[in-house]
């Protein structure tokens, strides 16, 4: 075991993947010599070779397109998109090509890409460094979409994603790179060192894609969330002394519906929390599935706490970011207190 922050955990996962499989390679903007603007690939080029970890032109559509071609040629590319906010030029390649290649070729061709991208706000990044576009990808059949919330999961899930023969969109909540974050920007930053989830095995292990985790058991209500909001929701329940069960989905597609249903049948009350905008966000899918499976067990309407339906505003970041208070208010509404 070692203590790692999320950046080191991701780096370790890629290091192992590069060591174990000569067909694995990493490409993206500034990932090579420099090691990425968030340092996730630091040292990997030097260790594994120029041709295994290299810088690309600034062309997200081009990056994903060539990675698809490399995948078809038998390689296993790991793509870094510098910020999720910059993935849009690649959307055609992801949606029309990568996601459907296996289907349209009758199973003859596929490309086992892992497309990593930092997402989410809380870093004063304004509208072009803060977005949470997971709902765009979960809407596309043929893509898996996952989002870890701590170093242990980040490493295990990234190894799973890389070894997966299907394309995986791997979202990394950048506010969690250096430590857990409970939603209060005025508190001093906490590092992963103090958290059990910062204990990460140095060797190969996997965390399966499609398994949610109950991070806090409870009986009064179920909070369904993922990414940065896992930590905010947990702190909210603790501070308000509400016996809420907190579920970290970890993987959105595939979705661990069994864990959700089992919890909601026990609690009868649900709050869905995500940082992404509300309308057509993944929370809408979660609400729909929960009522399909648990309608007769629900004691109150399903609540959603989300980012507002506006671009992420620089100066009003903390009015935008779903706060502990908003989560507690939603919990109280669903509890009728």
């Amino acid at each position: 075991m070692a203590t790692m922050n999320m950046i080191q955990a991701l780096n370790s996962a890629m290091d192992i993947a590069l060591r174990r499989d000569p067909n694995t390679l990493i490409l993206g903007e500034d990932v090579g010599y420099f090691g990425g603007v968030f340092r996730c690939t630091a040292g990997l080029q030097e260790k594994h070779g120029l041709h295994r970890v290299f810088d690309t032109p600034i062309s997200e559509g081009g990056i994903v397109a060539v990675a698809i071609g490399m995948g078809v040629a038998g390689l296993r590319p790991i793509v870094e998109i510098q910020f999720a906010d910059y993935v849009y030029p690649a959307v055609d390649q992801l949606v029309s090509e990568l996601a459907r290649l296996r289907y349209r070729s009758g199973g003859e061709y596929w490309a086992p890409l892992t497309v990593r991208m930092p997402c989410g706000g809380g870093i004063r990044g304004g509208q072009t460094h803060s977005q949470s576009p997971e709902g765009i990808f979960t809407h596309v059949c043929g893509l898996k979409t996952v989002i870890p919330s701590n170093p242990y999961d980040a490493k295990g899930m990234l190894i799973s994603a890389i070894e997966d023969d299907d394309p995986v969109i791997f979202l990394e909540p950048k506010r969690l790179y250096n430590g857990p974050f409970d939603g209060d920007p005025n508190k001093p930053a906490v590092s992963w060192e103090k958290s059990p989830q910062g204990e990460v095995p140095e060797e190969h292990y996997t965390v399966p894609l499609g398994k949610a985790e109950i991070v806090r058991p409870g009986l009064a209500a179920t909070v369904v969330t993922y990414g940065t909001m896992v930590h905010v929701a947990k702190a909210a329940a603790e501070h308000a002394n509400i016996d809420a069960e907190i579920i970290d989905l970890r993987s959105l597609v595939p979705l661990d519906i069994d864990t959700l249903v089992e919890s909601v049948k026990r609690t009868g009350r649900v709050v869905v929390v995500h940082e992404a905008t509300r309308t057509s966000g993944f929370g809408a899918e979660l609400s729909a599935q929960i009522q399909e499976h648990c309608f007769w067990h629900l004691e109150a309407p399903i609540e959603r706490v989300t980012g507002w339906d506006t671009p992420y505003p620089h100066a009003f970041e903390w009015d935008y970011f779903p706060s502990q208070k908003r989560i507690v208010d939603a919990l109280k509404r669903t509890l009728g207190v």
Partner: protein
Amino acid sequence: METVPEQTRLHIPIPSSRPGEQPDFSDIEVPNAGSAERPDEGVDPREIPELASTLIRVLNKKHEAVGPWAMDIPVDTLRRGLRYMLTVRVYDDRMFQLQRQGKLSFYMKSTGEEAVSVAAALALRSGDMFFPSYRQQGLLIARDRSLVDMMSHCLSNSRDSAKGRQMPVMYTWKEGNFFSISGNLGTQLPQAVGWAMGAAYKNQDHVAAGWVGDGTTAEGDFHYALTFASVYQAPVIMNVVNNQWAISSYQGVAGGEHATFAERGLGYGLPALRVDGNDFLAVYAATQWAAKRARQLDGPTLIEHFTYRVEAHSSSDDPSQYRPLSEASEWPLGDPIERLKNHLINLGEWSEEQHQELYQETVEKIRAAYAEAESYGTLTDGPRLSRSTMFEDVYKEPLPHLQRQRAQMLED
């Protein structure tokens, strides 16, 4: 298991030097000032491919303006250019310092690249429309935008014209025909082409000018711009600011190893000029040439400005991680401010004493502007606009669901 190949047939571009090594600019050919031909503005682009490969330079080692691109620029314009460039530099230094003190969340300097925007702004008319990237603050300053307003934007305060919605340096200034900057690279170059198509459609003689970095030429949007500009012969000037670096990636990663960025234009049938971007007079002359061509409806021009990013990419960057720190001082094309200053001194129109005085004045001007800007608030201490404004401008009128969300937020 297969073994990892030690050697590979895959070509990976690598820069001439890395930290710990001697900077090496031996690949860069610097033609003599005055050596490039200056064709008539109506020239058929097929006749001037060499202008995409050479460097148009006007100022020689003796600080004289020489050759066919040495235009008759009024001395007053040169002095204004010098003053604006100096203002940009001092402004950048001060704002960067303030970022380090925690007053700004972020900042990007344009040190060493001041001529690229200041000379262009002075060569164009006030009705011409700018579609800049984040490193053309010189355009605002050369169009006399209030420094207090620029700083107020960077502070996201109560006077910020972007209403606190954008990170610092993502300016917007409609009154000055300066388009709202996007953080997404390249997206605005084809929009500049569209604006120019609009001007032609309306029979106006305005010109649009857009700027992208060397790294950004790899985006599809750059190629959309060249295609549409060529197809519709739009009155647009497309500027590539080749400052050698895109964060940590040298220009070879954008394809600069095998052709110049100006040469991209040739395949699209565009006239393409490669210009010494640290030579104020050359940038001015090339822009004027392209503007005349556009105004007389002879079509678009692609200009590569060959320059060097002297400072970090942004306040979040540390260039000592990926390039030798002494690179900047060894850059073969010098400093744009020094070069224009020396030219003016050579003309007998300026002196070291006047320059020192101007520098002190500029520092004072920036200090005073900041004191005023801060009185309108800072990101951390306010005053800011009311938070309910964040629901405005998503649509022309807030839709009902946004009104509900706003009410919900204000209840908290």
